[in-house]
Structure formats: C-alpha cells, structure tokens
C-alpha cells in the first residue's frame, strides 16, 4: 500500500509506468479502514471549501425544489414505488420480464402473479404526479379486473391448469405493455441512434451533449457480439455524420461496453481479449477516429478491471489511436483500486502525450460485487461497504483528477446525481477543463440548475435501443437509485431536510464507529457460527501470481499412496517387498504424464484395518466432542494452507480445472468446520416420554464406519463422509475411488498432522471389485456412507443385509437425471449462462449436473440458438490452464461409455451442437461437450455422467405433465427452474420430487450448511450431507432413565 496523499506530489509520478502499475492490484481487497484512512486527507475539504460546498449545495437543492418541473416522471415513480416497498419490487419484476414474453398465456399469468399480492391502493394520491397516479389506478384496476383473491381449495394440478389455460385478458395485457413502454421511454432516448439524435436535439439546444450507449447486455455468442459491433458502428457513423452544430453543445460521444463485443471478455481468456477483442475495437476506433467521434470504454465488474486496462493500454498505444486524444474510459470510485488506476492512466497519458477523457462514476455493480466475494470466500471486498466511503473515495479521486499534475493528461468527466458531489467538484476545481455527466431520465433538474450555477459542460449518458433490451439496464439503474436512501430519492422528497443532503461525506463517514459497515460481514464471516472457507481470485494479478507459481512448481511432483493402517503408511514397505501390484497413476488430460504410484490394499489389509478401527473405537468414543471438533478445525486450517498442493493434485489426478480444484478444497474445509460445529450440538437431551419416565438421551458413535467415496469430489466427499463419521464418535475405514487415491492419501496425511489418533482413520486404496465386498460384508461394520452409482449402492445394501447382524445405517448418495425447467418469462441470457455451467462445468461430472433441459416452446428457438453459440465459445483442454472451461473425464472407461451414448443419440435424436476437440486433447480422456434435442426424458434410460446435455421443448399448457414425467424417472437429486412467475416456480418446486431445487440460478455448486445436498428416490437415502440432520445417522441413541413417575405406574397405564 502506498501513501495516498503522495499522488499530489510531483516526485511520486516520476516512477516508471510499470512501477505505478504494480500499485494497482495489491489494493484489490485491501483492508477498508486502512485504505480509507489514507484517502480521507485527499477528500477532506479545507474550512473554506467546506463552507462553500455546503452553501452551494443548499442553494442548488433549494432551486431544484422551487422548480415546479423539477421532478421528472421517473423520479416521481421512484419516489412512490421505492424498492423498499413490496409494490416497488413487484413493479420492477413486472417491468423486467413482461415485454420479452412471447406468449400471452404466460404473460397474463405473470401479470396476475405480480398484481395479486400488493397493496396498490395505498399508493394512490400519495404522489402529485399524474403519471404515478395513472399508473396506480391502472395497476389497482388491473388487480380488480383479474378478480384475484384466495381461490377455493383445489388440487394443485387443477390450479396449475387454471393458471396456465385461463383465457387471456388481452386488454389488461396490452395496458400493462403500454405502461411498461411508458417506463421505457423515460430511460431510453431512442429506439435507434437516429431517433435518439432527433430526440436529443432540444437538450443540445440548451447546451447539453450526449454519450450514446447502445443497449444490450454481455454477448454470449459470436453472433451477438457481431450484432453489437454493428450497432456500435452504426452509432459511430450516425454521430460522426450528424450535421447538427452548436456553439454551446460539445460533440457527442459513444460509450462502448466491452462485454457486448466479445463473448469471452474475461481474464481467463486474456489472450483472446488482447487479440480478437483488440481487433474488433481497433476497427471501431479506426472509424471513430476518421469521423472524430470520441469513444469511452464502459466499466464493468471488478474482476475485469486489470484486463480492461491492459486492453486499453494496447489500443491507446496503437497507431489507430495514437495522437487522437479522444479515446477514454470509465473508472468506478467504489473500487479500492480506483486511485492507483488514475495515477497509472495519468502517467500513461503523460508518456504518450494524448489526452484521456475519463468518466469517474461511483459504480453500478455494488450488490453483485458483495455477493460474489461472499460466495468465493475472498479475504475482503473489492468495493467499499458504506455509501459514504464511496463518496469519500470519489472526492479523493476527484481531488487528484483536478490537480495540476493531471491537467492536460486526463480530461475528467464527473458523473453523479448528487448535488453535494457536484458542488464539491465545482468548489475543488481551480480550472475549467472538465465536464459533468448524468444519466438520461435522471437528475435533469439538478443539472439544469448546476449548469447555470457552475457554467460547466454537461454530457448526458443516453441508452439507445429497443425497450426489450432496456430491461436489464433498467433494473440496474433502479437498484442503484430506487432505494429510498439514495440521493435521487431524497432530493425530490420534500420531507427530507436540506441540511441532511448537504452533509459532507467525510463528516458522515468519520461519524461512524468504524469505516467498514459492520452490518455487512467480511466474506470470511458470512456464516454465523463458523468461518467461510478461503478462496483465491485467480482473475486478479496480485492474488493469482503467487498461487499459480506454487501450483506450477507442484505439477511435476510424484505422489505415492498405499494403505495406512493404525497410522502406518505401508506404501514403501509394499513397494520394496513387491507384495502387491503397484499402480501407476497418470493424468486424465495426458496419459503420458505419470503423476504417482499407488499400492492397492489386499483382503488382509481390510481385516487389519477393521480390527484396528475396532480397537481404536472405545477410546475415540470417550474422547470429548470438543477435542474431536478441534481436530477437524485444525484439519480445515491445514487444508487451506495446502490449497496449492491440492489444486495441483486435483489437476493431475482428477483432471479438475483451476476453479473446480479451488472449490474442491473449499468444500472440504467447509465440511470440516460445519460438522465440527454440528457435533457440539449433539448434547444429551432430557425429556419425559409418553410413559411418564424422564430419560436422558445421548447420541454416541456406533462403531466402525466404512466410508466409500467417489472420484468426482475426491477430497470434499472423501473428507465430508469421514469427518462426519469421526466427529459423531465412530472410527472409520475409508476407501476412496481407485481413480483418486493420491488425493485421499494426502488428506489422511494431514489428518494425522491435525491430531487424529492413528487407529481412528484407516485408509484403504483399492478397487471396489477387489475389496469392496470384504469391507461391506464384515460383521463388525456399524454403518456405511457411500457416494457413487445407484447399482453399486444396491450391491452394498445387499452385502450389508446379508450379514448375520442387526441392520445398520446405510447412507447412500447416488445418481440423478437432473432437469431444468424454463418458462417464457425467464431471461434467455441468464438461462443460457446457467445451463452452460450446470451441464458442462466439471465436464458434467457432478452429481448435480444438468442432464435434461425443458424449454417452453415459445422461446426455445432463441434459447437453443444461444446455447449452441455459447457452447462454441467453450474451451476444452488442459485443466491447469486458466482458459480451460471443460477438462477431461476421469478415465477411458467413462470416456467410452459417454462416446457410445453420443453415438446412439446422434443416430436417434437431433444433435444441436458438438464441440470439436483440439490437439491438446489427443493424449487424454476427453469427451466433446455435446447437446441434443430429444423427444422426451423417457428417451434416457440411465444417467450419462459427462458433458452431454439433452433438450426437450414443451408447451406452456403441459407444465404439470413435464413435472410428472421428471418425477417418473424415479431419480430426485437436483432441479433448476427459471421463471419470473413466483406462482409457477413455487408450484414446480413443490411438486417436483427432488432433493435440491434451485430457482433462477444454476443448479450446481451446493454450499455446505447453506444448500445441504442429497436426493430422494433412486438418488439416495438421505440424510443430506452438509445439513443439520446428517450427523444423527452416524450415531445411536443411548438412554439413561432418571426418574420413574410412580403415579404413572400406579395408574396401570404403563406396563
């Protein structure tokens, strides 16, 4: 970390560009308090500045409030329908989805769904706006016309049929469409660039100018990227050829969103970004330079910042742009890296001599950044957790941008709708070389008055595009400004005192007890009773480089594994005595690469291991649960310390990609910590039973548990089973899948280091056919935890039941035929992202992976085309490369089975897409990701555990039958649902017999303790792993009678 105030010293800027670059990444998730302490002196105004800012802000607000035309219709709507109200959220849900629904039945159902639950009447007459009241009357009337209310009880099938088949109400639908269009008009300047230019004229006459933004979200396919390219080119042409001239309105510019121009604009595909996307942008820039249309690169997610800067530098230095001075970009002040980025850009501009126009915004992805960091278990957040902190950072950045060290290098463009920020900038500036920017549809009154007061140029960021494309944009804007605490909201709310709006953010931030928001726990602390597992962000240079370097060094290591009985590792002994066959382990992605050697266990080892575990049981059972839990906690810490090693092992032995490997270790860590906590809740319970006797019930270990784990989660499930069994008081004989014995052996090494006594964990690598029966037929076995195929589970069950012994717990997690149901209210782009991840991540080798996608026929063409296009962008290859999306399957046996299925499907069904395999795949066990359109799920008689997706179209009216057909497969593991209609998705969720149901997201990646995992029917016995009921199944009840109530006895009621 550097001293922030140094940015105002000339000497600081004399550092080489590379050195300034190196200051950026380490601040990615720097401690918030530390960094804000650095920034505060930059943001803190002098006494004179402070008084001046407060005065000017106050004047501005008074002028706005006195202006009868100040509140724009959309501001009024936001004021009335704040996102803090149920109606506000419902209105936005409706706005987000309605216009893209092609079929009227589904549209009507959605309208009913959203209008049935809210109290629209309460909003009537709250607002003076005719627009708002008209909307409210419309919504209320609609609610009444539809005749909602609590329907009489009926069977769910009847209810759904009624829901789906009810006669459409075209009048209502059209009225709602019209209402949505009215909303759209407020946010979109024009449906195309010509219309936008035309509609922008009146504002230009007033001296404003525009930056046109072509609406559209991230491209998922090359075809989409080409379409967006054409849109941008058209915009550049139109702006360049516009004949409008004005002395007061500067030339308009065009804003470009990079994710719209390349389907894989992400760090993992850096090489493609710096070549393909570079070429695309070069073409656009060439034309822009020819027509002299300034271009601004929009800011997106925090993980893309470093990549976007590298691309920007390459373009900026290119012959196309050099000497121009109108190629600019957007920087988000909520990013902790914003200030060093500005410093670096300033040095870049100074070095080349071309001005960089730079829009400073506060940032629009705040909620997502918070969520992603929590999910990924990062050490901290890339953004600030208080709005005031972002405001402080914004002013600190502005102070630097307005300094003489920057003047002439960067042309600052300050985008804000906050009167205090605008006034602060006007006061801080000692020159006029900057402009303000605002969004179309917002802050009009503020800038009408600010322009008059400060005589600075104002540019309006104006979305251009169809109303359908508006929706995701609209949602983001509303989220950003719709909460009633936002400045936009409070500015127009006359009830909000002016002095609360003129407070300086430095004062507001420093008035808190802590700079970070204590209501938003750090990502590592999101769980109330345990630490979140730590993740690494490999998209960030400062995080990725040390981690990747460690992994790289381990890739050439050779590992060994053999039975570990009573704490004695037998590999060396077996290797030397040649007692057993030593298996050579090779990498699934290249069978020429040797990874290590494994000595498989014999029947004698099985006997010895079980005896050892039996002998260790009494002492282990007596060990206090707190001690057992502490060992698990220690193991979790050790796993985190060995993250790089396990990542390397996962690449080499299991063919797992980088993200999958990190997730693997994180899940194992979560299991350890979760069960450690759960075990401590298995405290004795005293209660009086039905016979009047008070008893104390304790849960104790049952004896020796056999844990048989699969290769697809070689660390997480291996340790998940073992840690549960151990902490519940059992000793364990563990047999991992033979394909991943090395990973399991390394985990057992760490268990010893964590303090588990020698005999409590016995490790037996081997084939199921060789030692499986011996393990599960042994009379001493007190229970079995198994994850694997349904037929193997059935065999184990018979083996256990064939013993002359009392029935013991058999916890089996088995296969699935997992489906996703998508109706026409769903957002196709979101669906496709989730389908691709659910079906092809981990090469489809997850129990939870999507196998059969059901799409409502009204949107099927578009969604299938997107899936095809998105599949073509997937990279199949070497798992240790960042760019790889899909690695190999586990072995040649799996590969052959999958290829046979693909062959069969190719002959009997319609192939949608199949990726070619490149040269990197020739020596490994790779299966090309493939998608088929099939007639029905019944075409599939078994699960195909690999990267193969099956797609079925259905009619809206057949939804109930679809759910029934999925239920009829007998499997019940995971299901995905994509629908904006809550009534629909709740109905499906209730009627689908599955263990884990995911709504409006992907259906893989269950998190321990958050989404306990396990299915029903043919998919498993339960209880769910990582859930609150799991440990009980590893225990047995011991009862101690405490007190016999004589009255009960005397009454004779109890014998």
């Amino acid at each position, binding site marked *: 970390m550097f001293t922030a105030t140094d940015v105002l010293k000339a000497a600081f800027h004399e550092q080489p560009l590379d050195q300034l670059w190196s200051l950026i990444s380490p601040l990615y998730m720097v401690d918030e308090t530390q960094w804000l302490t650095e920034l505060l002196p930059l943001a803190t105004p002098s006494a004179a500045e402070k008084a001046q800012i407060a005065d000017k802000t106050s004047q501005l607000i008074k002028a706005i409030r006195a202006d009868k035309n100040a509140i724009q219709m959309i501001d009024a709507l936001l004021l009335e329908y704040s*996102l803090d109200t149920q109606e*506000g*959220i419902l209105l936005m*849900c409706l706005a987000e989805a309605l216009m893209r629904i092609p079929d009227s039945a589904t549209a009507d159902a959605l309208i009913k769904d959203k209008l049935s639950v809210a109290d629209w009447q309460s909003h009537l007459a709250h607002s003076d706006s005719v627009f708002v009241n008209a909307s409210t009357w419309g919504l209320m009337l609609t609610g009444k016309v539809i005749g909602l209310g609590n329907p009489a009880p009926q069977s*769910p099938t009847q209810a759904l049929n009624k829901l789906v088949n009810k006669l459409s109400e075209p009048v209502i639908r059209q009225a709602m469409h019209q209402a949505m269009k009215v909303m759209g008009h407020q946010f979109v300047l024009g449906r195309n660039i010509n219309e936008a230019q035309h509609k922008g004229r009146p504002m230009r006459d007033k001296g404003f100018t525009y930056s046109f933004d072509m609406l559209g979200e991230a491209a998922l396919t090359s075809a989409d990227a080409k379409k967006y390219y054409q849109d941008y080119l058209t915009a550049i042409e139109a702006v360049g050829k516009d004949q409008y001239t004005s002395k007061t309105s500067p030339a308009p510019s065009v804003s470009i969103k990079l994710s719209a121009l390349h389907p894989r604009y992400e760090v993992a595909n850096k090489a493609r970004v710096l070549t393909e996307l570079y070429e695309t942008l070069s073409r656009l820039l060439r034309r822009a330079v020819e027509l002299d249309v300034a271009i601004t690169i929009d800011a997106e997610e925090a993980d893309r910042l470093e990549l976007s800067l590298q691309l920007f530098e390459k373009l900026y230095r290119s012959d196309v742009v050099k000497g121009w001075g109108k190629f600019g970009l957007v920087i988000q002040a909520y990013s902790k890296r914003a200030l060093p980025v500005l410093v670096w850009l300033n040095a870049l501009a100074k070095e080349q001599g071309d001005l960089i126009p730079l829009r400073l915004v506060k940032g629009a992805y*705040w*909620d*997502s950044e*918070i*969520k992603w960091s*929590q*999910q990924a278990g990062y050490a901290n957040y890339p953004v600030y957790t*208080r*709005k*005031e902190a972002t405001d402080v950072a914004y002013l600190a950045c502005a102070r630097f941008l307005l300094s003489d060290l920057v003047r002439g290098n960067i042309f600052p463009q300050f985008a804000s709708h906050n009167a205090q920020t605008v006034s602060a900038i006007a006061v801080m500036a000692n020159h006029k070389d900057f402009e303000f920017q605002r969004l179309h549809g917002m802050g009009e009154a503020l800038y009408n008055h600010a322009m008059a007061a400060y005589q600075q140029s104002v540019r309006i960021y104006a979305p251009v595009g169809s109303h359908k494309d508006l929706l995701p944009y609209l*949602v983001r804007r509303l*989220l950003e400004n719709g*909460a009633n*605490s*936002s400045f936009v909201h409070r500015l127009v709310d006359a009830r909000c005192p002016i002095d609360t709006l003129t407070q300086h953010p430095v004062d507001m931030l420093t008035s808190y007890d802590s700079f970070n*928001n204590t209501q*938003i726990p750090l990502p590592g602390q999101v769980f*109330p009773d345990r630490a979140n597992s730590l993740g690494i962000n490999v998209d960030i240079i400062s995080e990725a480089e040390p981690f990747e370097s460690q992994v790289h060094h381990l890739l050439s290591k050779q590992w060994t594994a053999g039975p570990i009985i009573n704490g004695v590792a037998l590999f060396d002994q077996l290797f030397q005595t040649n007692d057993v066959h030593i298996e050579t382990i090779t990498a699934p992605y290249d069978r020429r690469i040797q990874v290590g050697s494994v000595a498989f266990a014999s029947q004698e080892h099985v006997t010895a291991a079980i005896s050892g575990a039996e002998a260790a049981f009494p002492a282990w059972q007596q060990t206090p649960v707190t001690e057992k839990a502490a060992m698990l906690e220690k193991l979790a810490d050790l796993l985190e310390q060995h993250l790089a090693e396990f990542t390397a092992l996962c690449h080499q032995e299991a063919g797992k990609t980088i993200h999958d490997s990190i997730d693997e270790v994180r899940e194992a860590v979560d299991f350890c910590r979760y069960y450690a906590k759960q075990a401590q809740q298995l405290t004795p319970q005293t*209660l009086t039973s*039905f*016979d009047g006797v008070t*008893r104390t*019930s304790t849960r104790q270990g049952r004896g020796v548990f056999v844990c048989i784990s699969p290769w697809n989660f070689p660390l997480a499930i291996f340790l998940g089973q073992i840690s549960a069994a151990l902490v519940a008081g059992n000793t364990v004989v563990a047999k991992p899948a033979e394909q991943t014995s090395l990973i399991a052996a390394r985990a057992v090494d760490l268990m010893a280091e964590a303090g588990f006594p020698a005999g409590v964990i016995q490790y037996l690598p081997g084939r199921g056919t060789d030692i499986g029966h011996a393990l599960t037929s042994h009379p001493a076995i007190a229970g079995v935890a198994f994850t694997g195929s349904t037929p193997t*589970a*059935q065999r184990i*069950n018979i083996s*256990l*039941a*064939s013993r*002359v012994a009392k*029935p013991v717990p058999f916890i089996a997690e088995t296969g699935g035929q997992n489906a996703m149901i998508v109706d026409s209210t769903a957002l196709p782009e979101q669906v496709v992202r989730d389908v691709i991840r659910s079906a092809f991540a981990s090469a489809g080798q997850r129990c939870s992976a999507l196998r059969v996608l059901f799409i409502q026929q009204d949107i099927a063409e578009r969604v299938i085309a997107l899936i095809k296009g998105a599949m073509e962008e997937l990279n199949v290859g070497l798992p240790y490369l960042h760019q790889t999306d899909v690695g190999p399957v586990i072995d040649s046996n799996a590969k052959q089975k999958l290829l046979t299925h693909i062959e069969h499907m190719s002959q009997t069904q319609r192939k949608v897409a199949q990726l070619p395999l490149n040269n990197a795949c020739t020596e490994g066990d790779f299966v090309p990701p493939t998608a088929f359109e099939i007639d029905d799920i019944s075409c599939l008689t078994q699960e195909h555990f690999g990267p193969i997706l099956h797609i079925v179209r259905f009619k809206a009216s057949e939804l109930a039958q679809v759910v029934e057909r999925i239920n009829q497969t*007998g499997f019940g593991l995971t299901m995905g649902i994509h629908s904006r209609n809550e009534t629909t*998705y709740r109905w499906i*969720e209730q*009627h689908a*017999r599955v*263990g*884990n*149901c995911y*709504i*409006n*997201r992907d259906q893989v990646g*269950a998190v321990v303790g958050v*989404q*306990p*995992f*396990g299915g*029903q029917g043919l998919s498993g016995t*339960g209880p*769910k792993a990582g859930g609150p*009921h799991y440990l*009980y199944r590893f225990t047995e*009840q011991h*009862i101690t009678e405490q007190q016999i109530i004589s009255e009960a006895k005397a009454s004779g*009621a109890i014998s």
Partner: protein
Amino acid sequence: MINHVTRFTDAQQAWEQWNLAPFDHKLSQLQAFSAALQQGNATLAKVCQFHLEQGKKWLAQPHRLIGPTGETNELYTAGRGVALLILDNTDHCQQAQQSMMAMLSAALLAGNAVLLCSDDITFNNAVNNAMQQAQLPAHLLHIIAFDAYPVLLGCDIRSAGYIGSSQVELSLNLQLAKRDGVIVGLVSETDLPAMSLAHDPLLALRFITERTRTINITAVGGNATLLELGSAAH
C-alpha cells in the same frame, strides 16, 4: 393378492395430497387421531401425542439457512412415500403396540401414507376406530393382514418399519435390500422391553426426505436490502 397391490396404489395417491398438505394441517388431523385414540386406549394416545410433539420440533418449520447475500435458502422435510409398517406377534404385546404406534405417528406426521400389516386385532381396532373418528383422508392409512407384507414388499414402498423378532428383522432387511429400485432402510425394534425406538424423540427423522429450495433474489430486486445496508441510514 391383487387387492393388496390396489391398496398400495390407493395409498400412493393419498400420499401425494397428504404430502403436499401444510404441516399444520397434518398435525391437526393427527391430533384428532390421537384424541380419538384416547377414548379406546389412553396409552397409545400418549405415544401418538409424544411423537407428534417431538416431530413438530423437527418438521414444522423450514430451516432458514444463512449464506451469501442475494439468495434465500431453506431446508424442509417431506414424506418419502408409502411406508410399510409391520407388526409381528410377540410376547410383549403392549410394548409392541406402543412401538408400532410410535412408528405410525412418526411416519404419518412426516408426510407418508401407511400400509400397516398387523394381526393384532386390539391394536387394529384402536387404530381403525380412531382413523374413522378423526376422518383421516381416505386411503392414507390401510390396515392389512400381517401375512400380506411379502407381497407389499414388491410394491414401490419408500419406508419400512418392523416390530417383532430379530430373525424376521434379518430376513426382512435382506428382502428389502434385494428389491430393485429405491433403497429402503428398515426401521425396526426387536428389544421390546427396552423400547428405545419408541422413546426416540428423533424417530420422525427416519421417515422423512429432506429438500432444499434456493431462490436467487438478485434478479428481482432482492438486493435492494443490501443497498440499504450500505447506505447512510445505517
């Protein structure tokens, strides 16, 4: 024989509705069942009531699971399907009846339909009368002759319970294991003087299946709450 299979089909259909019914509805129906038992056999009523109370602690409310922001996660339970409960003849008739009542109550409360194979006329009558009085849904609970169970084992039952001898328990367990299809564990009690199963407050957990429901709420404005947390208001 075909009659028994028909009963299974009826029970399966009844299960679909019973399983979908809200927990409170099931509880109130079973409390009526328990109240009706009280008239004929107070001890059995107490057993039933005990398991309704214990089961309620575990099954009544979905668990809200705390995780990263932007999603709601809930864990709740459902019935597994049709449970086959078998009451064998034993020397400990009352304990056997109480143990079977424990299983029956737990299985029904958990959301299952039940096929009860029993030749214990006293027990059968008590259950039958209570079922009639409480107006349990049609076909939810069938009382069938003990010797029908081998045939019913061939149906798609999803839970199995047995009260009786160790020998039959072993054989039943093996028969269950040898069936094709869904793996069904046996819940059994053979140590009738101890009756540990009947006193187990967690008995209902043996008859459930667990489900999680995860809803992404970021797509529909749910993160407005998060924006609030980041705001000046706090």
